[in-house]
Protein backbone atom coordinates (compact mmCIF):
# COMPACT_ATOMS: atom_id res chain seq x y z
CA UNK A 1 0.00 0.00 0.00
CA UNK A 2 1.51 3.30 -1.06
CA UNK A 3 0.27 6.52 0.42
CA UNK A 4 0.05 8.15 -2.99
CA UNK A 5 -3.46 7.70 -4.32
CA UNK A 6 -4.13 7.65 -8.02
CA UNK A 7 -5.78 10.86 -9.21
CA UNK A 8 -7.62 10.99 -12.51
CA UNK A 9 -8.90 14.15 -14.17
CA UNK A 10 -12.12 14.29 -16.18
CA UNK A 11 -14.47 16.89 -17.58
CA UNK A 12 -17.75 15.24 -16.63
CA UNK A 13 -18.37 12.68 -13.92
CA UNK A 14 -21.85 11.28 -13.35
CA UNK A 15 -22.45 9.91 -9.87
CA UNK A 16 -25.28 7.35 -9.83
CA UNK A 17 -26.37 4.90 -12.50
CA UNK A 18 -30.13 4.93 -12.03
CA UNK A 19 -32.33 5.85 -15.00
CA UNK A 20 -31.40 9.52 -14.69
CA UNK A 21 -27.62 9.06 -14.45
CA UNK A 22 -27.67 6.59 -17.33
CA UNK A 23 -29.83 8.94 -19.41
CA UNK A 24 -27.22 11.65 -18.78
CA UNK A 25 -24.47 9.36 -20.09
CA UNK A 26 -26.56 8.60 -23.18
CA UNK A 27 -27.16 12.29 -23.89
CA UNK A 28 -23.53 13.29 -23.40
CA UNK A 29 -22.39 10.46 -25.62
CA UNK A 30 -24.89 11.53 -28.26
CA UNK A 31 -23.43 15.04 -28.15
CA UNK A 32 -19.88 13.72 -28.45
CA UNK A 33 -18.84 14.32 -24.85
CA UNK A 34 -16.89 11.83 -22.80
CA UNK A 35 -18.17 10.89 -19.34
CA UNK A 36 -17.29 8.67 -16.41
CA UNK A 37 -20.27 7.13 -14.62
CA UNK A 38 -19.74 5.88 -11.07
CA UNK A 39 -22.28 3.48 -9.61
CA UNK A 40 -22.12 1.73 -6.25
CA UNK A 41 -24.17 -1.27 -7.18
CA UNK A 42 -23.32 -4.05 -9.61
CA UNK A 43 -26.95 -4.69 -10.51
CA UNK A 44 -29.95 -2.83 -11.86
CA UNK A 45 -32.80 -1.38 -9.78
CA UNK A 46 -33.94 -3.80 -7.12
CA UNK A 47 -37.64 -4.36 -7.79
CA UNK A 48 -39.43 -2.54 -10.50
CA UNK A 49 -40.08 0.96 -8.99
CA UNK A 50 -40.74 3.24 -11.98
CA UNK A 51 -42.89 1.66 -14.67
CA UNK A 52 -44.59 4.46 -16.64
CA UNK A 53 -42.40 6.28 -19.17
CA UNK A 54 -43.86 9.29 -20.89
CA UNK A 55 -43.94 10.40 -24.49
CA UNK A 56 -41.38 13.10 -23.73
CA UNK A 57 -38.99 10.59 -22.16
CA UNK A 58 -39.30 8.41 -25.25
CA UNK A 59 -38.75 11.39 -27.55
CA UNK A 60 -35.63 12.35 -25.61
CA UNK A 61 -34.28 8.79 -25.69
CA UNK A 62 -35.18 8.40 -29.34
CA UNK A 63 -32.80 11.17 -30.36
CA UNK A 64 -29.91 8.86 -29.60
CA UNK A 65 -31.66 5.67 -30.65
CA UNK A 66 -32.03 4.48 -27.06
CA UNK A 67 -35.84 4.38 -27.23
CA UNK A 68 -36.01 1.52 -29.71
CA UNK A 69 -35.52 -1.27 -27.20
CA UNK A 70 -37.80 0.44 -24.70
CA UNK A 71 -40.58 0.55 -27.28
CA UNK A 72 -40.02 -3.05 -28.34
CA UNK A 73 -40.23 -4.44 -24.84
CA UNK A 74 -42.58 -1.91 -23.26
CA UNK A 75 -46.35 -2.17 -23.08
CA UNK A 76 -47.93 0.73 -24.95
CA UNK A 77 -50.98 2.26 -23.38
CA UNK A 78 -53.02 5.37 -24.03
CA UNK A 79 -56.25 4.50 -22.21
CA UNK A 80 -57.22 4.84 -18.61
CA UNK A 81 -60.36 4.06 -16.62
CA UNK A 82 -61.40 5.50 -13.30
CA UNK A 83 -63.92 3.67 -11.13
CA UNK A 84 -65.92 4.55 -8.06
CA UNK A 85 -66.68 1.28 -6.27
CA UNK A 86 -67.28 -0.92 -9.33
CA UNK A 87 -68.83 1.75 -11.59
CA UNK A 88 -66.70 3.39 -14.22
CA UNK A 89 -66.85 7.17 -13.63
CA UNK A 90 -64.97 8.02 -16.79
CA UNK A 91 -62.25 6.89 -19.14
CA UNK A 92 -59.63 8.81 -21.02
CA UNK A 93 -57.44 8.49 -24.08
CA UNK A 94 -54.10 10.22 -23.71
CA UNK A 95 -53.20 9.96 -27.37
CA UNK A 96 -55.79 12.15 -29.04
CA UNK A 97 -53.49 12.82 -31.96
CA UNK A 98 -52.51 10.05 -34.31
CA UNK A 99 -49.54 11.66 -36.03
CA UNK A 100 -46.96 11.35 -33.27
CA UNK A 101 -44.06 8.96 -33.44
CA UNK A 102 -44.14 8.11 -29.74
CA UNK A 103 -47.09 6.72 -27.76
CA UNK A 104 -48.46 8.67 -24.79
CA UNK A 105 -46.94 6.15 -22.37
CA UNK A 106 -45.23 2.83 -22.20
CA UNK A 107 -44.99 0.67 -19.13
CA UNK A 108 -41.61 -0.90 -18.62
CA UNK A 109 -39.89 -2.07 -15.45
CA UNK A 110 -37.18 0.30 -14.25
CA UNK A 111 -34.57 -2.48 -14.34
CA UNK A 112 -35.24 -2.97 -18.07
CA UNK A 113 -34.88 0.74 -18.73
CA UNK A 114 -31.55 0.77 -16.90
CA UNK A 115 -30.39 -2.36 -18.69
CA UNK A 116 -31.34 -0.97 -22.12
CA UNK A 117 -29.66 2.37 -21.49
CA UNK A 118 -26.52 0.65 -20.31
CA UNK A 119 -26.46 -1.74 -23.23
CA UNK A 120 -26.99 1.20 -25.57
CA UNK A 121 -23.81 2.71 -24.15
CA UNK A 122 -21.81 -0.47 -24.33
CA UNK A 123 -19.19 -0.30 -27.04
CA UNK A 124 -19.56 3.48 -27.29
CA UNK A 125 -16.12 4.77 -26.46
CA UNK A 126 -17.37 7.99 -24.93
CA UNK A 127 -18.84 6.48 -21.78
CA UNK A 128 -16.89 4.72 -19.09
CA UNK A 129 -19.37 2.99 -16.78
CA UNK A 130 -17.74 1.92 -13.54
CA UNK A 131 -19.93 -0.28 -11.38
CA UNK A 132 -18.91 -1.13 -7.80
CA UNK A 133 -17.38 2.35 -7.67
CA UNK A 134 -18.79 4.27 -4.74
CA UNK A 135 -18.17 7.94 -4.14
CA UNK A 136 -17.34 8.28 -0.46
CA UNK A 137 -16.23 11.90 -0.35
CA UNK A 138 -16.43 15.14 -2.28
CA UNK A 139 -14.78 18.49 -1.82
CA UNK A 140 -14.69 21.61 -3.95
CA UNK A 141 -11.22 22.79 -4.88
CA UNK A 142 -9.98 26.38 -5.12
CA UNK A 143 -10.40 26.24 -8.88
CA UNK A 144 -14.07 25.33 -8.46
CA UNK A 145 -13.53 21.76 -9.61
CA UNK A 146 -14.75 18.79 -7.60
CA UNK A 147 -12.44 16.31 -5.95
CA UNK A 148 -14.23 12.97 -5.65
CA UNK A 149 -12.97 10.13 -3.56
CA UNK A 150 -13.96 6.75 -5.00
CA UNK A 151 -13.85 3.37 -3.33
CA UNK A 152 -13.99 0.04 -5.16
CA UNK A 153 -13.61 -3.52 -3.82
CA UNK A 154 -9.90 -3.35 -4.74
CA UNK A 155 -8.76 0.22 -4.34
CA UNK A 156 -9.40 3.79 -3.43
CA UNK A 157 -8.72 6.57 -5.93
CA UNK A 158 -9.60 10.17 -6.64
CA UNK A 159 -11.07 12.04 -9.53
CA UNK A 160 -10.68 15.72 -10.15
CA UNK A 161 -13.79 16.64 -12.14
CA UNK A 162 -14.60 19.84 -13.96
CA UNK A 163 -18.32 19.12 -13.57
CA UNK A 164 -20.21 16.56 -11.52
CA UNK A 165 -23.72 15.34 -12.28
CA UNK A 166 -25.21 14.27 -8.95
CA UNK A 167 -27.66 11.54 -9.92
CA UNK A 168 -27.27 9.58 -6.70
CA UNK A 169 -30.95 9.30 -5.86
CA UNK A 170 -33.32 10.35 -3.11
CA UNK A 171 -30.80 9.90 -0.27
CA UNK A 172 -28.09 11.68 -2.26
CA UNK A 173 -24.75 11.31 -0.53
CA UNK A 174 -23.31 14.26 -2.46
CA UNK A 175 -26.16 16.50 -1.34
CA UNK A 176 -25.63 15.61 2.30
CA UNK A 177 -21.85 15.81 2.12
CA UNK A 178 -22.11 19.33 0.67
CA UNK A 179 -24.42 20.29 3.53
CA UNK A 180 -27.46 20.78 1.31
CA UNK A 181 -31.02 19.69 2.01
CA UNK A 182 -34.42 19.17 0.43
CA UNK A 183 -37.57 20.82 1.73
CA UNK A 184 -41.20 19.96 1.27
CA UNK A 185 -43.85 17.74 2.73
CA UNK A 186 -44.18 14.15 3.72
CA UNK A 187 -47.46 12.29 3.40
CA UNK A 188 -48.36 10.01 6.32
CA UNK A 189 -50.48 7.72 4.18
CA UNK A 190 -48.99 4.27 3.47
CA UNK A 191 -49.24 2.48 0.15
CA UNK A 192 -48.65 -1.15 -0.65
CA UNK A 193 -46.88 -1.44 -4.00
CA UNK A 194 -46.55 -4.88 -5.46
CA UNK A 195 -45.69 -6.57 -8.76
CA UNK A 196 -47.34 -9.87 -9.52
CA UNK A 197 -47.03 -12.33 -12.35
CA UNK A 198 -50.29 -13.53 -13.94
CA UNK A 199 -50.86 -16.30 -16.48
CA UNK A 200 -53.41 -14.52 -18.68
CA UNK A 201 -52.61 -11.19 -20.32
CA UNK A 202 -54.55 -8.15 -19.06
CA UNK A 203 -55.98 -5.29 -21.13
CA UNK A 204 -53.34 -2.63 -21.66
CA UNK A 205 -54.84 0.24 -19.77
CA UNK A 206 -54.49 2.05 -16.47
CA UNK A 207 -57.25 1.34 -13.97
CA UNK A 208 -57.88 3.33 -10.85
CA UNK A 209 -60.52 2.66 -8.21
CA UNK A 210 -61.79 4.96 -5.51
CA UNK A 211 -63.35 3.06 -2.62
CA UNK A 212 -63.38 -0.29 -4.45
CA UNK A 213 -65.55 -3.16 -3.17
CA UNK A 214 -62.39 -5.28 -2.80
CA UNK A 215 -60.57 -2.67 -0.73
CA UNK A 216 -63.20 -0.56 1.03
CA UNK A 217 -62.58 3.07 1.90
CA UNK A 218 -59.20 3.18 0.15
CA UNK A 219 -57.96 3.46 -3.42
CA UNK A 220 -56.33 1.02 -5.82
CA UNK A 221 -54.31 1.32 -9.01
CA UNK A 222 -53.52 -1.32 -11.58
CA UNK A 223 -50.97 -1.13 -14.39
CA UNK A 224 -49.88 -3.74 -16.92
CA UNK A 225 -46.17 -4.36 -17.46
CA UNK A 226 -44.32 -6.59 -19.92
CA UNK A 227 -43.84 -10.31 -19.15
CA UNK A 228 -47.44 -10.56 -17.84
CA UNK A 229 -46.55 -8.56 -14.75
CA UNK A 230 -49.14 -6.37 -13.06
CA UNK A 231 -48.29 -3.42 -10.85
CA UNK A 232 -50.80 -2.93 -8.05
CA UNK A 233 -50.86 0.01 -5.64
CA UNK A 234 -53.19 -0.28 -2.66
CA UNK A 235 -53.74 2.62 -0.31
CA UNK A 236 -53.47 1.40 3.29
CA UNK A 237 -54.26 4.40 5.48
CA UNK A 238 -52.10 6.34 7.89
CA UNK A 239 -51.91 3.75 10.63
CA UNK A 240 -50.86 0.72 8.58
CA UNK A 241 -47.79 -1.08 9.87
CA UNK A 242 -45.30 -1.59 6.99
CA UNK A 243 -43.98 -4.81 8.58
CA UNK A 244 -47.38 -6.45 8.84
CA UNK A 245 -48.54 -5.15 5.47
CA UNK A 246 -45.56 -6.53 3.57
CA UNK A 247 -46.21 -10.05 4.81
CA UNK A 248 -46.62 -12.12 1.60
CA UNK A 249 -49.62 -14.11 2.90
CA UNK A 250 -51.45 -10.92 3.73
CA UNK A 251 -50.56 -9.38 0.37
CA UNK A 252 -51.63 -12.60 -1.36
CA UNK A 253 -55.10 -12.41 0.15
CA UNK A 254 -55.52 -8.70 -0.62
CA UNK A 255 -54.64 -9.27 -4.28
CA UNK A 256 -56.79 -12.39 -4.54
CA UNK A 257 -59.73 -10.31 -3.34
CA UNK A 258 -58.97 -7.69 -5.95
CA UNK A 259 -58.49 -9.97 -8.96
CA UNK A 260 -61.04 -12.64 -8.04
CA UNK A 261 -60.72 -16.17 -6.69
CA UNK A 262 -60.02 -17.85 -10.02
CA UNK A 263 -56.95 -15.80 -10.99
CA UNK A 264 -53.58 -17.47 -10.46
CA UNK A 265 -50.62 -15.24 -9.72
CA UNK A 266 -47.17 -15.16 -8.12
CA UNK A 267 -45.90 -12.22 -6.13
CA UNK A 268 -42.66 -10.80 -7.54
CA UNK A 269 -42.00 -7.77 -5.40
CA UNK A 270 -43.61 -6.18 -2.34
CA UNK A 271 -42.93 -2.82 -0.85
CA UNK A 272 -44.74 -0.47 1.53
CA UNK A 273 -44.14 3.21 0.92
CA UNK A 274 -45.11 6.57 2.29
CA UNK A 275 -44.35 9.39 -0.08
CA UNK A 276 -42.76 12.81 0.04
CA UNK A 277 -42.84 15.81 -2.24
CA UNK A 278 -39.61 17.72 -1.71
CA UNK A 279 -36.91 19.59 -3.55
CA UNK A 280 -33.61 21.39 -3.05
CA UNK A 281 -33.72 25.21 -3.12
CA UNK A 282 -31.37 25.24 -6.09
CA UNK A 283 -30.01 22.42 -8.23
CA UNK A 284 -26.84 24.18 -9.38
CA UNK A 285 -23.99 24.20 -6.86
CA UNK A 286 -21.10 24.61 -9.23
CA UNK A 287 -19.34 22.49 -10.15
CA UNK A 288 -22.06 20.05 -9.01
CA UNK A 289 -25.41 19.78 -10.78
CA UNK A 290 -28.19 17.89 -9.03
CA UNK A 291 -30.59 15.90 -11.19
CA UNK A 292 -33.45 13.44 -10.72
CA UNK A 293 -34.40 12.19 -7.25
CA UNK A 294 -31.24 13.73 -5.76
CA UNK A 295 -32.69 17.17 -6.56
CA UNK A 296 -36.42 16.51 -6.07
CA UNK A 297 -38.86 13.75 -5.18
CA UNK A 298 -42.56 13.36 -5.79
CA UNK A 299 -45.22 10.79 -4.96
CA UNK A 300 -45.60 8.39 -7.87
CA UNK A 301 -49.16 9.34 -8.93
CA UNK A 302 -48.57 10.98 -12.28
CA UNK A 303 -45.30 9.18 -13.07
CA UNK A 304 -43.36 12.37 -12.63
CA UNK A 305 -40.26 11.13 -10.76
CA UNK A 306 -38.23 9.32 -13.39
CA UNK A 307 -39.79 11.24 -16.27
CA UNK A 308 -39.07 14.55 -14.53
CA UNK A 309 -35.48 13.44 -13.95
CA UNK A 310 -35.00 12.61 -17.61
CA UNK A 311 -36.28 16.06 -18.52
CA UNK A 312 -33.61 17.47 -16.17
CA UNK A 313 -31.03 15.69 -18.29
CA UNK A 314 -32.63 16.91 -21.49
CA UNK A 315 -32.28 20.43 -20.14
CA UNK A 316 -28.81 20.25 -18.61
CA UNK A 317 -26.69 18.19 -20.97
CA UNK A 318 -26.73 20.39 -24.09
CA UNK A 319 -25.89 23.38 -21.91
CA UNK A 320 -22.86 21.71 -20.34
CA UNK A 321 -21.83 20.41 -23.76
CA UNK A 322 -22.09 23.91 -25.27
CA UNK A 323 -19.99 25.39 -22.47
CA UNK A 324 -17.37 22.63 -22.71
CA UNK A 325 -17.13 23.08 -26.46
CA UNK A 326 -16.65 26.81 -25.96
CA UNK A 327 -19.85 27.70 -27.82
CA UNK A 328 -21.63 29.31 -24.90
CA UNK A 329 -20.72 31.39 -21.84
CA UNK A 330 -20.85 29.78 -18.40
CA UNK A 331 -23.89 31.90 -17.58
CA UNK A 332 -25.90 29.44 -19.67
CA UNK A 333 -25.54 26.93 -16.85
CA UNK A 334 -27.57 29.11 -14.48
CA UNK A 335 -30.58 28.60 -16.67
CA UNK A 336 -30.67 24.97 -15.53
CA UNK A 337 -31.85 26.19 -12.14
CA UNK A 338 -34.19 28.77 -13.57
CA UNK A 339 -35.82 26.29 -15.90
CA UNK A 340 -35.86 23.07 -13.89
CA UNK A 341 -36.79 24.41 -10.44
CA UNK A 342 -40.21 25.60 -11.72
CA UNK A 343 -40.52 22.26 -13.51
CA UNK A 344 -39.93 20.43 -10.23
CA UNK A 345 -42.53 22.68 -8.61
CA UNK A 346 -45.04 21.80 -11.30
CA UNK A 347 -44.38 18.10 -10.69
CA UNK A 348 -44.60 18.54 -6.94
CA UNK A 349 -47.82 20.55 -7.23
CA UNK A 350 -49.50 17.97 -9.43
CA UNK A 351 -48.45 14.91 -7.51
CA UNK A 352 -49.29 16.56 -4.16
CA UNK A 353 -52.77 17.42 -5.42
CA UNK A 354 -53.35 13.85 -6.56
CA UNK A 355 -52.13 12.47 -3.25
CA UNK A 356 -54.35 14.94 -1.40
CA UNK A 357 -57.38 13.91 -3.44
CA UNK A 358 -56.70 10.25 -2.62
CA UNK A 359 -56.21 10.95 1.05
CA UNK A 360 -58.69 13.69 2.07
CA UNK A 361 -57.23 15.49 5.03
CA UNK A 362 -60.39 16.62 6.86
CA UNK A 363 -64.18 16.18 6.94
CA UNK A 364 -64.78 18.99 4.45
CA UNK A 365 -62.37 17.55 1.88
CA UNK A 366 -64.03 14.13 2.31
CA UNK A 367 -67.45 15.69 1.70
CA UNK A 368 -66.34 17.62 -1.35
CA UNK A 369 -64.80 14.49 -2.79
CA UNK A 370 -68.06 12.62 -2.17
CA UNK A 371 -69.90 15.45 -3.95
CA UNK A 372 -67.49 15.30 -6.88
CA UNK A 373 -68.15 11.56 -7.20
CA UNK A 374 -71.93 12.00 -6.98
CA UNK A 375 -72.01 14.71 -9.64
CA UNK A 376 -69.53 12.99 -11.93
CA UNK A 377 -72.06 10.26 -12.69
CA UNK A 378 -74.08 12.59 -14.90
CA UNK A 379 -72.06 15.77 -15.22
CA UNK A 380 -68.88 15.83 -17.27
CA UNK A 381 -67.60 18.97 -15.54
CA UNK A 382 -67.27 17.09 -12.24
CA UNK A 383 -65.21 14.33 -13.85
CA UNK A 384 -62.50 16.91 -14.44
CA UNK A 385 -62.22 17.32 -10.68
CA UNK A 386 -61.60 13.62 -10.05
CA UNK A 387 -57.86 13.35 -9.52
CA UNK A 388 -56.25 9.92 -9.71
CA UNK A 389 -52.95 11.34 -11.00
CA UNK A 390 -52.17 14.01 -13.58
CA UNK A 391 -49.73 12.31 -15.86
CA UNK A 392 -46.30 13.68 -16.67
CA UNK A 393 -46.04 16.09 -19.59
CA UNK A 394 -43.11 18.24 -20.72
CA UNK A 395 -42.68 21.42 -18.71
CA UNK A 396 -42.78 24.65 -20.67
CA UNK A 397 -39.96 27.10 -19.83
CA UNK A 398 -42.06 30.09 -20.79
CA UNK A 399 -40.44 32.45 -18.27
CA UNK A 400 -36.86 31.56 -19.12
CA UNK A 401 -34.26 34.24 -19.81
CA UNK A 402 -33.12 32.15 -22.76
CA UNK A 403 -36.37 32.91 -24.62
CA UNK A 404 -36.97 35.95 -26.74
CA UNK A 405 -40.36 37.64 -26.82
CA UNK A 406 -43.10 35.82 -28.66
CA UNK A 407 -44.28 37.32 -31.94
CA UNK A 408 -47.76 38.74 -31.18
CA UNK A 409 -48.85 37.75 -34.69
CA UNK A 410 -49.22 34.17 -33.39
CA UNK A 411 -51.83 35.39 -30.88
CA UNK A 412 -50.50 32.75 -28.51
CA UNK A 413 -51.36 29.85 -30.81
CA UNK A 414 -49.00 26.96 -31.58
CA UNK A 415 -46.00 26.14 -29.35
CA UNK A 416 -45.00 29.28 -27.45
CA UNK A 417 -41.36 30.13 -26.62
CA UNK A 418 -40.18 27.75 -23.90
CA UNK A 419 -42.40 24.85 -24.81
CA UNK A 420 -41.29 21.55 -26.32
CA UNK A 421 -41.53 21.00 -30.07
CA UNK A 422 -44.60 19.21 -31.37
CA UNK A 423 -44.15 16.13 -33.48
CA UNK A 424 -45.95 15.67 -36.81
CA UNK A 425 -45.97 13.11 -39.57
CA UNK A 426 -44.60 14.44 -42.85
CA UNK A 427 -43.71 13.13 -46.28
CA UNK A 428 -40.27 12.79 -47.76
CA UNK A 429 -40.26 11.35 -51.27
CA UNK A 430 -42.69 8.48 -50.88
CA UNK A 431 -42.06 7.69 -47.22
CA UNK A 432 -43.55 8.98 -43.98
CA UNK A 433 -41.17 10.67 -41.58
CA UNK A 434 -41.51 12.42 -38.24
CA UNK A 435 -40.66 16.03 -37.72
CA UNK A 436 -38.81 15.52 -34.42
CA UNK A 437 -36.37 13.17 -36.15
CA UNK A 438 -35.24 16.07 -38.32
CA UNK A 439 -34.63 18.72 -35.67
CA UNK A 440 -31.18 17.30 -34.88
CA UNK A 441 -28.89 17.78 -31.90
CA UNK A 442 -27.80 21.37 -32.52
CA UNK A 443 -29.79 24.56 -32.69
CA UNK A 444 -32.34 24.41 -35.45
CA UNK A 445 -34.29 26.83 -37.59
CA UNK A 446 -37.61 25.31 -38.56
CA UNK A 447 -38.90 27.23 -41.54
CA UNK A 448 -42.33 26.89 -43.09
CA UNK A 449 -42.02 27.49 -46.82
CA UNK A 450 -43.67 27.36 -50.22
CA UNK A 451 -42.38 27.52 -53.78
CA UNK A 452 -42.16 31.26 -54.05
CA UNK A 453 -40.41 31.66 -50.70
CA UNK A 454 -37.82 29.10 -51.61
CA UNK A 455 -36.96 30.86 -54.84
CA UNK A 456 -36.89 34.31 -53.24
CA UNK A 457 -33.73 36.31 -52.71
CA UNK A 458 -34.75 36.97 -49.14
CA UNK A 459 -34.77 33.29 -48.34
CA UNK A 460 -31.33 32.82 -49.89
CA UNK A 461 -30.03 35.62 -47.66
CA UNK A 462 -31.72 34.11 -44.64
CA UNK A 463 -30.17 30.76 -45.38
CA UNK A 464 -26.69 32.18 -45.75
CA UNK A 465 -27.09 34.19 -42.58
CA UNK A 466 -28.11 31.12 -40.59
CA UNK A 467 -24.96 29.33 -41.72
CA UNK A 468 -22.69 32.22 -40.75
CA UNK A 469 -24.46 32.56 -37.42
CA UNK A 470 -23.73 28.95 -36.57
CA UNK A 471 -22.35 26.50 -39.11
CA UNK A 472 -23.88 23.62 -37.16
CA UNK A 473 -27.39 25.08 -37.16
CA UNK A 474 -29.91 22.74 -38.76
CA UNK A 475 -32.25 24.23 -41.27
CA UNK A 476 -35.45 22.21 -41.54
CA UNK A 477 -38.04 23.19 -44.11
CA UNK A 478 -41.67 22.17 -44.22
CA UNK A 479 -43.92 22.88 -47.17
CA UNK A 480 -47.58 22.15 -47.90
CA UNK A 481 -46.87 20.97 -51.43
CA UNK A 482 -44.02 19.10 -53.07
CA UNK A 483 -41.46 21.66 -54.13
CA UNK A 484 -41.13 21.86 -57.89
CA UNK A 485 -37.75 23.49 -57.92
CA UNK A 486 -34.72 21.28 -57.82
CA UNK A 487 -33.54 22.03 -54.29
CA UNK A 488 -30.27 21.18 -52.68
CA UNK A 489 -31.83 20.84 -49.26
CA UNK A 490 -34.58 18.44 -48.24
CA UNK A 491 -38.04 19.85 -47.80
CA UNK A 492 -40.53 17.88 -45.71
CA UNK A 493 -44.04 17.82 -47.08
CA UNK A 494 -47.10 18.46 -44.95
CA UNK A 495 -49.81 17.21 -47.29
CA UNK A 496 -52.62 17.30 -44.73
CA UNK A 497 -51.64 20.74 -43.43
CA UNK A 498 -51.76 19.37 -39.89
CA UNK A 499 -48.19 20.35 -39.12
CA UNK A 500 -48.71 23.93 -40.33
CA UNK A 501 -51.84 24.02 -38.25
CA UNK A 502 -50.29 22.61 -35.08
CA UNK A 503 -47.42 25.08 -35.30
CA UNK A 504 -49.82 27.87 -36.27
CA UNK A 505 -47.55 28.57 -39.23
CA UNK A 506 -47.89 30.29 -42.59
CA UNK A 507 -45.32 30.17 -45.38
CA UNK A 508 -42.52 32.33 -44.00
CA UNK A 509 -42.92 31.36 -40.32
CA UNK A 510 -39.64 30.61 -38.56
CA UNK A 511 -39.03 28.82 -35.25
CA UNK A 512 -35.68 28.96 -33.50
CA UNK A 513 -35.33 25.66 -31.63
CA UNK A 514 -32.77 24.73 -28.96
CA UNK A 515 -30.85 21.45 -28.93
CA UNK A 516 -33.36 20.07 -26.38
CA UNK A 517 -36.14 20.76 -28.90
CA UNK A 518 -37.63 23.53 -26.75
CA UNK A 519 -38.56 26.68 -28.61
CA UNK A 520 -36.36 29.76 -28.10
CA UNK A 521 -38.59 32.05 -30.07
CA UNK A 522 -40.51 32.35 -33.34
CA UNK A 523 -41.62 34.74 -36.06
CA UNK A 524 -44.86 34.48 -37.94
CA UNK A 525 -43.36 36.00 -41.05
CA UNK A 526 -39.55 36.02 -41.29
CA UNK A 527 -37.33 37.58 -38.65
CA UNK A 528 -35.13 40.53 -39.31
CA UNK A 529 -31.69 38.94 -39.50
CA UNK A 530 -30.42 40.93 -36.54
CA UNK A 531 -33.37 39.71 -34.45
CA UNK A 532 -32.52 36.15 -35.29
CA UNK A 533 -28.94 36.76 -34.24
CA UNK A 534 -30.02 38.33 -30.97
CA UNK A 535 -32.42 35.50 -30.21
CA UNK A 536 -29.75 32.92 -30.93
CA UNK A 537 -27.28 34.61 -28.59
CA UNK A 538 -29.92 34.96 -25.92
CA UNK A 539 -30.74 31.26 -26.16
CA UNK A 540 -27.06 30.53 -25.53
CA UNK A 541 -27.13 32.54 -22.32
CA UNK A 542 -25.35 35.66 -23.57
CA UNK A 543 -27.89 38.11 -22.18
CA UNK A 544 -28.58 36.75 -18.73
CA UNK A 545 -31.27 38.67 -16.89
CA UNK A 546 -31.97 41.06 -19.75
Amino acid sequence: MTNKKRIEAHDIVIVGGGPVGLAAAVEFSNLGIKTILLETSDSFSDGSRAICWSQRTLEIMDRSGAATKMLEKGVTWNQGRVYLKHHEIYNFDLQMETDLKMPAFINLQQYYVEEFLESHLRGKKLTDIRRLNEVDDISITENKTALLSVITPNEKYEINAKYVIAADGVNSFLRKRLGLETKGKKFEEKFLITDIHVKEPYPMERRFWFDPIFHKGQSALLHVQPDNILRIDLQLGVNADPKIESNPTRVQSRIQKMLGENIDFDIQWISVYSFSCKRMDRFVHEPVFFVGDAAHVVSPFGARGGNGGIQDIDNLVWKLASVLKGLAPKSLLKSYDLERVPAADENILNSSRSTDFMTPKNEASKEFREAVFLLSKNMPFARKLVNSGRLSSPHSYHNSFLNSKDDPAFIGKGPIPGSASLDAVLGLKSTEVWLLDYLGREFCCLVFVNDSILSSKRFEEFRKFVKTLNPQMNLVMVSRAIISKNMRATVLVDKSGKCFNKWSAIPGSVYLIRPDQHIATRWKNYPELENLEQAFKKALGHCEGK
Partner: protein
Amino acid sequence: MSYFFADQNIEAPDDFYEMLINAHDGLSNSDSRLLNANLILLLANQVGKVEILEEAISLARKSVIER
Protein backbone atom coordinates in the same frame (compact mmCIF):
# COMPACT_ATOMS: atom_id res chain seq x y z
CA MET B 1 -59.67 43.77 -9.31
CA SER B 2 -62.65 43.07 -7.11
CA TYR B 3 -65.57 41.09 -8.46
CA PHE B 4 -67.74 41.02 -5.38
CA PHE B 5 -70.09 43.71 -4.40
CA ALA B 6 -72.01 43.66 -1.22
CA ASP B 7 -74.97 44.83 -3.28
CA GLN B 8 -77.46 42.16 -3.89
CA ASN B 9 -77.48 40.50 -7.28
CA ILE B 10 -79.92 37.63 -6.73
CA GLU B 11 -83.13 38.26 -8.67
CA ALA B 12 -85.65 37.25 -6.05
CA PRO B 13 -83.83 37.06 -2.74
CA ASP B 14 -86.69 35.69 -0.67
CA ASP B 15 -87.58 33.05 -3.23
CA PHE B 16 -83.97 31.95 -3.45
CA TYR B 17 -83.54 31.76 0.29
CA GLU B 18 -86.68 29.71 0.70
CA MET B 19 -85.55 27.32 -2.04
CA LEU B 20 -82.20 26.92 -0.38
CA ILE B 21 -83.69 26.14 3.03
CA ASN B 22 -86.40 23.86 1.67
CA ALA B 23 -83.82 21.85 -0.19
CA HIS B 24 -82.55 20.60 3.15
CA ASP B 25 -85.98 19.41 4.36
CA GLY B 26 -85.85 16.01 5.95
CA LEU B 27 -82.13 15.51 5.35
CA SER B 28 -79.71 14.28 7.98
CA ASN B 29 -76.87 16.62 8.91
CA SER B 30 -74.41 14.71 6.79
CA ASP B 31 -76.73 14.63 3.77
CA SER B 32 -77.28 18.35 4.21
CA ARG B 33 -73.58 18.96 4.11
CA LEU B 34 -73.28 16.83 1.01
CA LEU B 35 -76.06 18.81 -0.64
CA ASN B 36 -74.20 22.02 0.15
CA ALA B 37 -71.02 20.63 -1.32
CA ASN B 38 -72.87 19.61 -4.48
CA LEU B 39 -74.37 23.05 -4.71
CA ILE B 40 -71.02 24.78 -4.34
CA LEU B 41 -69.52 22.67 -7.11
CA LEU B 42 -72.48 23.28 -9.44
CA LEU B 43 -72.42 27.02 -8.86
CA ALA B 44 -68.63 27.16 -9.16
CA ASN B 45 -68.87 25.48 -12.52
CA GLN B 46 -71.44 28.07 -13.55
CA VAL B 47 -69.18 30.93 -12.45
CA GLY B 48 -66.13 29.42 -14.14
CA LYS B 49 -63.65 32.26 -13.74
CA VAL B 50 -60.97 31.29 -11.28
CA GLU B 51 -60.35 34.88 -10.10
CA ILE B 52 -63.99 35.19 -9.06
CA LEU B 53 -63.94 31.83 -7.32
CA GLU B 54 -60.74 32.76 -5.54
CA GLU B 55 -62.26 35.95 -4.26
CA ALA B 56 -65.47 34.25 -3.17
CA ILE B 57 -63.49 31.59 -1.30
CA SER B 58 -61.34 34.14 0.43
CA LEU B 59 -64.34 36.30 1.40
CA ALA B 60 -66.12 33.26 2.79
CA ARG B 61 -63.09 32.21 4.81
CA LYS B 62 -62.47 35.72 6.11
CA SER B 63 -66.04 36.07 7.29
CA VAL B 64 -65.61 32.95 9.43
CA ILE B 65 -62.13 33.67 10.74
CA GLU B 66 -62.73 37.33 11.57
CA ARG B 67 -66.05 36.69 13.23
